[in-house]
């Protein structure tokens, strides 16, 4: 694992896939409650956490993301009844595979954040951004063609 101590200026690029019904609304609530989270987190709204294709995650890394987080409704609360249960299995297997390939396991994460959990949204993103800053730039899944 590479730990980036020297580059204090490093700002990570974090992609957060947030489900429309819970986590995206959670982000809204965080905003309207004036809770802050790092600007390094770029939110992409998806209809459901199970809309997140593994390809989206890898493409985010390819195009320069340093961390990817998927946020969805708590298990049992899915707007479509069962989407997040499927997502849970898929993401577990995908993360395990990334780990198996030697990609730092902290770079990916799944969190369940409801529309009422603005505080959890803000705390999670702050904490995730801090973890990624500590890990430094994503070098193991980068694609030089996509970098400036």
């Amino acid at each position, binding site marked *: *694992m590479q730990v980036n101590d020297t580059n204090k200026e490093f700002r990570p690029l974090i992609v957060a896939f947030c489900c429309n019904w819970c986590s995206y609304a959670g982000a809204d609530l965080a905003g309207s409650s004036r809770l802050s989270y790092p600007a390094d987190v770029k939110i992409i709204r998806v209809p459901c956490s199970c809309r997140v294709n*593994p*390809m989206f995650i*890898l*493409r985010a890394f*390819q195009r320069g993301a340093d961390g990817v987080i998927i946020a969805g409704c708590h*298990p*049992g609360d899915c707007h479509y009844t*069962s989407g997040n*249960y*499927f997502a*849970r*299995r*898929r*993401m*577990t*297997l*995908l*993360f*395990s*595979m*990334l*780990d*198996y*390939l*030697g*990609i*730092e*396991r*902290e770079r*990916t*994460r*799944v969190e369940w954040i409801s529309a009422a959990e603005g505080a959890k949204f803000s705390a999670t993103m702050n904490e995730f951004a801090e973890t990624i800053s500590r890990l430094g730039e994503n070098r*193991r*899944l*980068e*694609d*030089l*063609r996509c970098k400036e």
Partner: protein
Amino acid sequence: MQRINDDVLNKCRDLIENGTCDRVLAWEEGEFCYDVTPAVFTGDTLGKMIYDDFCAANQSKYLIDESHKEGRIAALLKPCDTYSFNQLLKENRIKRENVYVLGVPCDGKIDAEKARGLGIKGILGAEIDGDTVAFETIYGKKTCSKKDVLHEKCLSCKGKKHMIFDELTDPEKEPETAVPENGTSRFDGVSKLENMTAEERFRFWRGELSRCIRCNACRNVCPACSCRQCVFDNPASGVSSKANTNDFEENLYHIIRAFHVAGRCTDCGECTRVCPENIPLHLLNRKFIKDINELYGEYQAGYDTALDAPLTSYTKQDAEPGIVHERGVR
């Protein structure tokens, strides 16, 4: 050396003559005795049909197209091919009524490349005899131990029992249950990698995957990779070009390919067999199989079509993705 058992050949001839089928899916000899290719035979060409210890290809995939043609085809399927056949049936890719499955026995298949590595060159023929293999070469007869020249997929065979068939050519050879060749050691390679540090794993895979030339052979041969259009065939998606600058393209391709076949891979071992760069692709697929077994209960695609597939089902008690982070930090 005889390239097909008379009983099998006569059986196929009978099936055509009595109208059960109008063609047979088997193998055809190429330029050398060991480069055999799957081929379809009709009554007139049956004489060219072969099935011997070199015929390793998994035939099931060809039945997707063949079963949608007119008439009925007889297919010579080895035990491992029947897993893939079952899986394709489950996915509604094969028209069952148009296929007559002729289960053929298998003693493992010979990898001519491995034999050459042992110094056995100029191969004219070979036959498995118990634990040894007898080669006929331009330099005379040679023998070697069977386990040294079998394909990787045969060394980790799931068992010699056919999962599905209409008729067996050698019912006496058929075992009661599927007994894996080497017990549970099918996952040894995966465990070995899991026990390395992340840094070591990363270097291992970079070393392997960076050799990939993106010939797509692993995908094209795979019975699970039978989509009419593959994500990697769409030039507009920007994911189909080979990058010389780094290995990301190969990483992405292989992670996504393994993911797309997760829970559907029958571990037929074809991907590893055909890779011209000898990349151990089975280590990726078996990782998913092992994880599925550990997290969601034992499951082998192709074993029983009635079981729920692990990625299209769930339980409320499933582990959280964070389990990956908790499972022993290395």
